[in-house]
C-alpha cells in the first residue's frame, strides 16, 4: 500500500531512478512493510543528546538510498543549556521522499523525544495520529516537574491521539553495553545511536554507512566506536524482535534528473563555490573573517582547503576581516569575507571603501534573526535593506541570494563573476535555514562552470597619450575601472576613500565631478547584466504571481504545488539577483492581477518593488525564526486567489 504522509508538498517531477548500490546491512526483516511516498521525522532531545548528529546520520542514510531530502536543524544558541530544560531542547527534522521535494516538511509524521522537555517543546507540531517515540527512562518525576508537567503524559491520557511507542532507550542501551566495560554514563551517551538504529529499522534504511562513519569518527577510540555501533544495532534489533512495532515503512528512491549526487548543506556549498570561484578565476582566494553564527562553518571549511591556494585569516574583529580581504583584493587576490547581520553592520564602512576604490570583493551574509544579537541560531531575511542601503552616501552594491542549500554553490560563482567583471563588492545573502539545511546536489559538470578570468591592467592608459596611468578610466561597456595590482611597473597610483576625479583618479572636491562620479558608480551597478527572471506557471493562465527571494523558494514552491493540486493556477517566480533586478521584472509584475511577496521580514522586498515598479504587491511576512510552512502559505495564496486581499 502507498500512504501519503501528512501535509506533503506533492510530487511534481518525472523521470526514472535506479536503486542505489549496496543497500544492505542487517538481516532481512520479517515484518510487513508499508510503502510511503514521503516521511518527515523529527529527532528532539537535550542539547547534549547528539540530536544533530543523529539527524545528520539518518539524512546520509536517506541520501545513500537515493531519496530526495531536505533538512531543518533547530538548536539553541547556548552550547549546553541546563540539562532537561525547555531552552536546552535541540531538534533535527528531515523530510525524505520518492519524488523531488522542496522543504523539510511542515510537521513531523514521527517525533522522537528523548526527554520530557523535548516532548513538551515539540508535541504541538505532531499531527493527531502521528507516531511518537519516547525515551521513557527520562520521564522521571524530577524531569517532568522541571518542565512544568504536573502529571506524567505517559499516564494521564494526554497522548491518546498519537501512536505512542514507549522505549526505555537509556536502560536498553546501558544493558546492551554492559559487557563493553564502559561506565554507565558513557554507555548511556550512546542512546542516540539506539534511536537511530530503531528508526533505521522502521524505515528500512541502509546501515553500513553509519557504521563506517562511527568507526571513522572515533578512530582514535575504537572502544567508543564499537559501543556506538552496538547501540545502533541494539536499536535496530529492538524494532525487529519486539512486538511493539508491527510494521516498517519503505520510501523508494526519488526520480531525480540523472547524474551523480551528494548531500550538501548551504554553508558547505558556499565554501565549495568560493573554492571553485578561485579555480575558475585563476586567483588565489583570501578569506578574511571573524567567527559568527551561522557563518563560521564557511571559515572552518575553507581553512581545510589551503591546497587550492586558499588563505584563511581569522581576524581580530569583523572590520579587520573585511579590511584584510579588501587589502588582498587590492593585491590581486579574490578577497572574500563571511559573516552574519551584526557583522555586516560593522563592515559597512569598509564596504563603502570597496565601492569607492572599485575593487572586487565577495561579502557573504548568512542572515539570522535580528536586530542586534537577535536569534543567532534562527533564520530570517531581514538584512536585505541593510545590504542594499546600509552605508553612508550613495554606495550601490550588487546583491544576490541563493534559493536552496545547493544553490549557494552557483550563486557564489555568479557573485564572483559580477565582483571581478565590474570591480565591485558584491553581497551574497544566504540565511540560517539554507546554511544549515541540506539537500541532494547533482554534481556540476566542471567544464561547464563559468570562466571567471579577468585581466589585470598592464599598460599606461591615458587617452591623452601622456603615458600616464589613469586608475579611474572606465571600460566603456562595463564601466569597470582597471584593476592595476602593485608590482606592475608604470602603473603606480593612489586610491582611497576620498572622491576621485573621473578618469585621472586624483583627489577631487569639484561639485560637478562628484555628481558625475556618484552617477557613474550607480550606472555601473545598474548596468550589470543579469539573466531574465523566469516564471513557473504550468497552466499558462495564472493571474496571481508569487514572487520570492532567497531561502523561501522551497516553501513557496511547495505551497504553489498544493494550490495547483486543487486545480487553481498560480504562478511562481524567484529572484536571485536583487540588485540590479532582472530587466524583465517590471513586465512580469505587470502581467498579473495580483503579486504576492512572502518574506521572512516585515516586507523589505515588497518595499523595493513598490518603490521601483509602482506595483501594489501583497506582502506576506513572518519573523518567527523559522521558515514558512507550505500549509500556511497555501492559506495566504488561497485568500488572495479568492479576492480576499484584492
Amino acid at each position, binding site marked *: 500500500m502507498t500512504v501519503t504522509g501528512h501535509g506533503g508538498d506533492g510530487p511534481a517531477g518525472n*523521470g*526514472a531512478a*535506479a536503486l*542505489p548500490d549496496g543497500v544492505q546491512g542487517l538481516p532481512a526483516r520479517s515484518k510487513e512493510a508499508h510503502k510511503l511516498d514521503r516521511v518527515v521525522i523529527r529527532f528532539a532531545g537535550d542539547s547534549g543528546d547528539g540530536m544533530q548528529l543523529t539527524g545528520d546520520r539518518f539524512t*546520509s542514510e536517506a*541520501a*545513500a*538510498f*537515493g531519496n530526495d531530502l531536505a533538512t531543518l536543524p533547530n538548536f539553541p544558541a547556548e552550547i549546553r543549556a541546563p540539562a532537561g530544560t525547555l531552552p536546552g531542547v535541540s531538534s533535527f527534522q528531515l523530510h525524505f521522499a520518492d519524488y523531488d521535494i522542496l522543504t523539510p516538511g511542515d510537521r513531523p509524521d514521527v517525533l522522537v523525544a528523548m526527554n520530557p522537555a523535548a516532548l513538551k517543546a515539540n508535541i504541538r507540531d505532531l499531527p493527531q495520529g502521528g507516531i511518537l517515540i519516547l525515551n521513557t527512562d527520562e520521564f522521571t518525576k524530577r524531569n517532568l516537574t522541571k518542565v512544568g508537567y504536573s502529571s506524567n503524559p505517559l499516564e494521564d491520557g494526554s497522548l491518546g491521539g498519537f501512536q505512542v511507542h514507549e522505549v526505555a532507550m537509556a536502560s536498553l542501551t546501558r544493558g546492551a553495553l554492559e559487557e563493553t566495560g564502559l561506565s554507565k554514563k558513557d554507555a548511556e551517551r550512546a542512546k542516540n545511536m539506539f534511536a537511530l538504529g530503531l528508526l533505521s529499522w522502521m524505515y528500512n534504511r541502509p546501515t553500513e554507512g553509519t557504521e563506517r562513519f562511527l568507526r571513522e569518527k572515533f578512530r582514535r577510540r575504537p572502544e567508543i566506536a564499537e559501543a556506538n555501533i552496538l547501540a545502533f544495532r541494539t536499536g535496530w534489533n529492538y524494532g525487529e524482535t519486539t512486538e511493539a512495532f508491527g510494521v516498517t515503512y519503505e520510501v523508494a528512491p*526519488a*526520480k*531525480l*534528473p*540523472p547524474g*551523480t*549526487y*551528494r548531500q550538501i548543506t548551504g554553508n558547505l556549498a558556499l565554501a*565549495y563555490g568560493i*573554492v*571553485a570561484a578561485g*579555480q575558475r578565476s585563476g586567483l*588565489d582566494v*583570501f578569506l578574511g573573517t571573524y567567527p559568527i553564527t551561522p557563518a563560521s562553518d564557511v571559515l572552518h571549511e575553507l581553512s581545510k*582547503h*589551503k*591546497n*587550492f591556494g586558499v*588563505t584563511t*585569516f581569522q*581576524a*581580530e574583529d569583523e*572590520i*579587520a576581516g573585511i*579590511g*584584510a580581504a579588501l*587589502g*588582498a*583584493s*587590492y*593585491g*590581486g*587576490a579574490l578577497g572574500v569575507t563571511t559573516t552574519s547581520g551584526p557583522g555586516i553592520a560593522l563592515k559597512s*564602512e*569598509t564596504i563603502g*571603501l570597496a565601492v569607492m*576604490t572599485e575593487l572586487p570583493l565577495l561579502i557573504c551574509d548568512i542572515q539570522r534573526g535580528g536586530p542586534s544579537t537577535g536569534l543567532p541560531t534562527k533564520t530570517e531575511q531581514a538584512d536585505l535593506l541593510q545590504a542594499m542601503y546600509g552605508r553612508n552616501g550613495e554606495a550601490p552594491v550588487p546583491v544576490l541570494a541563493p534559493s536552496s542549500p545547493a544553490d549557494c554553490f552557483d550563486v557564489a560563482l555568479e557573485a564572483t563573476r559580477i565582483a571581478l567583471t565590474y570591480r565591485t563588492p558584491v553581497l551574497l545573502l544566504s540565511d540560517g535555514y539554507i546554511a544549515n539545511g541540506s539537500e541532494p546536489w547533482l*554534481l556540476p559538470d*566542471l567544464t561547464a562552470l563559468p570562466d571567471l578570468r579577468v585581466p589585470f591592467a598592464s599598460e599606461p592608459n591615458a587617452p591623452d597619450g601622456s603615458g600616464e596611468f589613469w586608475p579611474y578610466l572606465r571600460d566603456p561597456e562595463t564601466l569597470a575601472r582597471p584593476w592595476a595590482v*602593485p*608590482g*606592475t611597473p608604470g*602603473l*603606480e*597610483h*593612489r586610491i*582611497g*576613500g*576620498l572622491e576621485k576625479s573621473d578618469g585621472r583618479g*586624483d*583627489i577631487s572636491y569639484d561639485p560637478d565631478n562628484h555628481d558625475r562620479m556618484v552617477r557613474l558608480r550607480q550606472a555601473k551597478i545598474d548596468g550589470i547584466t543579469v539573466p531574465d527572471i523566469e516564471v513557473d506557471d504550468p497552466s499558462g493562465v495564472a493571474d496571481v504571481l508569487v514572487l520570492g527571494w532567497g531561502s523561501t523558494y522551497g516553501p513557496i514552491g511547495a505551497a504553489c504545488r498544493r494550490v495547483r493540486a486543487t486545480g487553481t493556477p498560480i504562478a511562481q517566480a524567484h529572484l536571485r539577483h536583487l540588485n540590479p533586478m532582472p530587466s524583465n521584472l517590471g513586465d512580469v509584475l505587470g502581467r498579473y492581477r495580483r503579486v504576492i511577496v512572502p518574506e521572512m521580514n516585515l516586507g523589505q522586498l515588497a518595499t523595493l518593488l513598490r518603490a521601483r515598479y509602482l506595483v501594489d504587491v501583497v506582502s506576506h511576512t513572518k519573523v518567527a525564526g523559522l521558515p514558512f510552512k507550505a500549509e500556511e502559505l497555501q492559506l495566504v495564496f488561497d485568500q488572495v486567489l479568492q479576492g480576499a486581499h484584492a
Partner: protein
Amino acid sequence: MTTVDLGLPSIGGTAGVPTTDEKQTAKSYTSDQEVRWCPGCGDYAVLAAVRSFLPELRLKRENTVFVSGIGCSSRFPYYLNTYGVHSIHGRAPAIATGLATSRPDLSVWVVTGDGDALSIGGNHLIHTLRRNVNLKILLFNNRIYGLTKGQYSPTSEQGKVTKSTPAGSLDHPFNPVSLALGAEATFVARAMDSDRKQLTEVLRAAAEHRGSALVEIYQNCPIFNDGAFDVLKDPGERERRIVPLRDGEPIRFGPDGEFGVVQDGFELRVRKVSEVGEDAVVVHDASRTDPGYAFALSRLGGQDLEHTPTGIFRSVSRPTYDDLAREQVRLAQESKPGDLAALLRGNDTWQVLG
C-alpha cells in the same frame, strides 16, 4: 639577561621583494600631487626623510605600497610615487595585513597617527603587532587631533584644554612604545621629526627587520599643538632629556654623558654616573627576548618628556604571520594539489540513472 638564539634563519625585511639597479632618487619617489599640509607641519620633514631614504632599499618602486588610515599624516601616500591606499579611519593595519599576506613580493608600509592608530584603530594595531605581520608602521604622534581641528588625542597629556575638553581632558594617555611592547611587537623604535639622521637610521633598521616594525615619530602640529616637543629640541634642554639608545653601548646621556640608566629592582632609573659608577650603567641590548627590559626603558620617560629614550627599543626575531601563512598554503599545495572534482564529490555519492 641574555639573548636566546632561536636558530631562525635571518631573513631581511625586504627579502622576496624585487630589486633594481636603476638609479633612484628622492625625486623618483615624489608623486605629481601638491602637498597640502599646513606650513610648518612636522609631516614635511618626515616625508622628506622617507623620500630620500627609500632609494637606499634599491627596491623596484612598483613593489612598494603605502597604506594609511585617516588623519593629516594619512595623506602621506598621495605624495609618494609608489602604489598607495588612503583607506578609512584606523583600519590601515588590517588592510595592509591582507595585502602583505597575499603578496610576499611587496614592501608594505603603514602611515598612521596617534588618533588613527591608538584610538579608533587600537585593536588592529595591537593584533598586527602580536601577529608580527611584515609591515613597517610609522606612527606620527603629535598628541592632538589635527584634521578634525583640535580635539585631544589618546596621547594628549591629562588635563589638556582643547575644543572638546574646555575644562581639561580626563583620560590618562597611552605611551605608544609601552603599548607596542605590551603587545610583544618585535621591533619598536622612536624618533623625532626634526632629527633626520636618527629618523633615517631607524627607518633603515625597520625596513631591514622581518616582521612588524613600529616607529613612533614625535611630530609637531604647528596649528593645534604647537611646541609639544619643543623641550626635546631646545639646545639647552635637549641633551639632558633625550636618552639615545645605541645597541651594545652603555645608555648614557647629558653633557659629557653625565647621566646613565641603571637597574633598580624591576625598574630602570636615571642616575648620575659619577654616583653609581660606570659599571652600573645598563648596556643597551635591543635583541633581548623578553620585552620586559624594553618596556622598562619605555617607562623612563613619561608624558612630561623629562627623559625621552629615542632609537630602537627592541628588535628581535620571531616568525612572521604572513610567512607562516604562506608556508601552510605552500605545503598543502605540495603535499596534495587541489582537485576540484574530488573535492565536490566528497565521500558519499549516489547515482541516479537516466
